């Protein structure tokens, strides 16, 4: 199949064009142009599906990639050479990611046409939605860090706008700034890392970076006292921390629920936060070269566990989901850290599907009840049966119950982490990572089912709300998207072998296709790769296409990946443990919130609950301490120093010295020049007079002072 501008660019260009058209003339179109956005994302979906079939359906080998570039601008002249190239990079991971993003985004677009239909800024929402998805698709297609960064920031802008969508609310403004600035902290580091990489590699395209790592260009160099590889890897990973809301920059994501619910779905599932993990996966060879994997695993584990604890006490439905996102992202990052490359990426995909579904379900609930405080809900499963089914499936998936998508990915991450932490022969200190992971899994099962029980089970706690709840709306754009997504929360789509022995052959591929196809880039392969022009014609010959070779592999690239036996036993232990943990979490939630035989958490751990409700005081620390007590007073002080001291005394003081000199010259002018009768010496003197007129006070005593001093000066100078 050909890879030309005509067959690849529409994936990005279709939503982008929809954005441009809607931005300018959207208000004049019928239905404010929503159909254009939906159509555009569906076109992207079709093109992505074609690529997906190409790669996954068996045309290409597992390590095949397509890399095509075109020149963006060229600064070469004289002896200087510098040019910036853009392009596309498509491999198995890209193709899966594209399908996920377009698929989930299509559902979200469809759902939005129902959810937002009575909003005053209906058209505007679709403008941002189109730009957001086009940004994500551009990011996924990018072949280099620069264009990745560009789309990365465009997404940041979109999230800023969408979070601040209800701009009448002050809080929306605060939340949007918080989101943009917190991710920006990571972004500037990413930019720095990119600049540093550019210096070493001469380029920032992924293939060149891989080749440079293989050639050892990163070895032996130092930046600011640490090794170059570590420095660049850290900077790039900071981008992930910011974008994927990892500890300690996790504060923005919970506030992002200020935006409309479909936009939360987009941010939490398909686009924004997935981009961070995607970057870490793309740059995985650099993370290994920079020896940063332990750090990454630790950050991921802390995030996964910490966010799960905070989610325990949230009463807002969307806040629970927001913290569950942070926690799940922690698992993905942990997966990257422990070397569970394949499983981490699989979790990106599965999480995107069920988290989108969860948020859309939440949207459905909120739209029907107009309330998102869980203590006021209850017993809704009779009123919203389809939403209940969808949400239940997703909750089972996120809790890690077998046969659901969350289990196949999260279980493998936990298994790999267990092996990495305990059996791979490294320091036992790192056992903390799987321990936190498993603890987080328990909490996840617990708080998700707490949410389910509070919303759908028991008696309605607020009778008035319950009575006013609309009966569920059934339509292609209200709950059909939910049900479509629900179908894909089942595990067999991703791992055929779990459900049954090569029975299901997804898209004509072999079973366990996911596990086989996605693998960490083998950097040696990229040395001396050819440059291919991205144009309207594909220059490759059909015969160049490689033959697909499928072989079973673990997908684990962490410490000692060859120890098959240890890995296998770790996986068995991990699987049993995580099933047990998930079920016990669900059971505890059942006891607490349905049977009510165990006291709810808030009563048992009162002091700790306050800490959790304040989210470990991170927000207070950043906003209250660092910004309000630190940065802003410092700025005020600096500004005062600038205008009140430096400008007033150093600069204007110098001016008053000059003013004094001007007075002398004014006196000189009056007494000597004017009395002799020299007049009108042109523009310069006129200007001088203008200035003098402003500065001269006319105080006779001062003239006398000047007279005496000048006379004394003459005496001292000439001494007769």
């Amino acid at each position: 199949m050909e890879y030309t501008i005509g067959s690849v660019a529409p994936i990005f260009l279709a939503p982008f064009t929809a954005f441009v058209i809607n931005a300018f003339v959207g208000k004049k179109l019928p239905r404010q142009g929503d159909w254009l956005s939906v159509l555009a994302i569906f076109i992207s979906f079709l093109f992505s599906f074609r690529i997906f079939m190409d790669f996954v359906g068996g045309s290409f080998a597992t390590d095949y990639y397509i890399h095509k570039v075109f020149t963006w601008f060229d600064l070469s002249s004289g002896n200087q050479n510098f040019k910036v190239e853009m392009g596309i990079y498509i491999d198995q991971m890209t193709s899966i990611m594209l399908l996920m993003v377009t698929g989930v985004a299509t559902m979200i677009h469809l759902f939005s046409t129902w959810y937002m239909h009575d909003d005053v800024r209906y058209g505007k929402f679709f403008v941002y939605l189109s730009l957001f998805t086009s940004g994500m698709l551009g990011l996924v297609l990018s072949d280099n860090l620069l264009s990745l960064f560009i789309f990365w920031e465009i997404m940041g802008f979109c999230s800023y706008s969408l979070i601040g969508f209800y701009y009448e609310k002050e809080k929306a403004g605060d939340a949007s700034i918080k989101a943009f600035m917190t991710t920006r902290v990571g972004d500037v580091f990413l930019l720095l890392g990119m600049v540093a990489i550019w210096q070493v590699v001469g380029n920032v395209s992924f293939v060149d970076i891989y080749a440079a790592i293989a050639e050892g260009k990163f070895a032996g160099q130092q930046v600011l006292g640490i090794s170059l590889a570590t420095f660049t890897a850290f900077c790039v990973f900071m981008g992930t921390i910011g974008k994927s809301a990892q500890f300690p920059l996790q504060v923005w994501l919970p506030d992002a629920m200020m935006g409309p619910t479909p936009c939360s779905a987009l941010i939490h599932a398909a686009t924004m936060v997935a981009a961070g993990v995607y970057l870490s996966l793309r740059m995985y060879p650099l993370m290994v070269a920079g020896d940063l994997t332990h750090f990454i695993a630790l950050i991921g584990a802390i995030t996964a566990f910490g966010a799960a604890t905070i989610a325990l006490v949230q009463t807002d439905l969307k806040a629970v989901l927001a913290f569950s996102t942070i926690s799940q992202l922690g698992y993905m990052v942990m997966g990257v850290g422990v070397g569970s490359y394949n499983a981490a990426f699989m979790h990106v995909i599965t999480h995107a599907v069920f988290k989108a579904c969860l948020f859309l379900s939440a949207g459905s609930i909120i739209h029907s009840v107009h309330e998102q405080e869980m203590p006021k809900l209850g017993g809704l499963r009779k009123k919203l049966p389809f939403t209940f089914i969808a949400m239940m499936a997703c909750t089972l998936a996120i809790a890690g119950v077998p046969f659901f998508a969350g289990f196949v990915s999260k279980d493998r991450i936990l298994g790999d982490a267990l092996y990495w932490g305990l059996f791979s022969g490294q320091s036992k200190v790192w056992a903390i990572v799987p321990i936190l992971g498993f603890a987080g899994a328990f909490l996840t099962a617990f708080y998700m089912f707490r949410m389910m029980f509070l919303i759908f089970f028991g008696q309605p706690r607020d009778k008035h709300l319950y009575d006013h709840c609309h009966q569920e709306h059934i339509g292609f754009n209200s709950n059909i998207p939910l049900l479509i997504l629900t179908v894909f929360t089942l595990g067999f789509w991703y791992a055929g072998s779990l459900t049954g022995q090569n029975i299901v052959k997804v898209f004509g591929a072999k079973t366990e296709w996911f596990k086989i196809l996605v693998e960490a880039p083998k950097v040696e392969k990229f040395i001396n790769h050819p440059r291919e022009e991205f144009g309207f014609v594909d220059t490759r010959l059909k015969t160049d296409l490689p033959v697909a070779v499928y072989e079973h592999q673990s997908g684990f690239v962490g410490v000692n990946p060859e120890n098959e036996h240890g890995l296998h036993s770790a996986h068995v232990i991990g699987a049993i443990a995580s099933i047990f943990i998930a079920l016990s979490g669900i059971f505890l939630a059942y006891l607490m919130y349905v049977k009510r035989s165990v006291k709810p958490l808030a009563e048992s751990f009162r002091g700790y609950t306050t800490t959790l409700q304040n989210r470990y005081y991170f927000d207070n620390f950043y906003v209250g301490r660092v910004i309000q007590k630190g940065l802003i007073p410092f700025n005020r002080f600096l500004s005062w120093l600038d205008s009140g001291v430096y400008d007033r005394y150093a600069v204007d003081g110098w001016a008053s010295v000059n003013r004094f000199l001007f007075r002398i010259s004014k006196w000189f002018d009056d007494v000597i020049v004017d009395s002799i009768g020299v007049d009108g010496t042109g523009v310069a003197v006129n200007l001088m007079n203008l200035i003098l007129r402003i500065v001269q006070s006319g105080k006779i005593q001062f003239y006398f002072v000047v007279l005496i001093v000048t006379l004394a000066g003459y005496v001292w100078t000439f001494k007769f």
Partner: protein
Amino acid sequence: MFLNLLFLMSAFLTVGSAVLVLTTKNIMHSCVFLLGSLIGVAGLYATLDADFVAATQIMVYVGGVVILMLFAVMLTGGKDFISKAQNLLGLIPTMGNKWSYSIGILVSLVFVFTNIQLLSRLGTMSTLKNNGSFGSSIREIGHLFVKDHILAFELSSVLLLGALVGAAIIARPHRHQGHDHD
């Protein structure tokens, strides 16, 4: 001996009164102290055998100028006598403030040092002896006025006349403004 005594007394009177002119708050008192200072100068003239100048000094200054000033003060100063202590030194507005005093003293110090610089060159001249008195100088001076300095003499008379007339005109309130102020 008498001469020395006279010199010392006159010098103290001159300088002391002048200092008081500077520091007294009340402008009326300042005028009175100026009187003392001028009398002291007259005494100094006397020690220099300039009896006619000394007499003129007393007559014109003490009898004329200072009286004139006292009148001016009385005509104008009524309001300014009321002390409106406004700063640390407890000075009244028309007295000046610590800044103007500092600048004044600074400038006068500059003058003094400059003057000392010049005076140090007069060492040779100051050794000249007092070669006896002129006797009565009135006749001599009269001759000088009508011979050598006749032009200046005439001009000064014109000046005096002009000053007299001018002062009268200036001080006279304008008719159309007079109602506003009287």
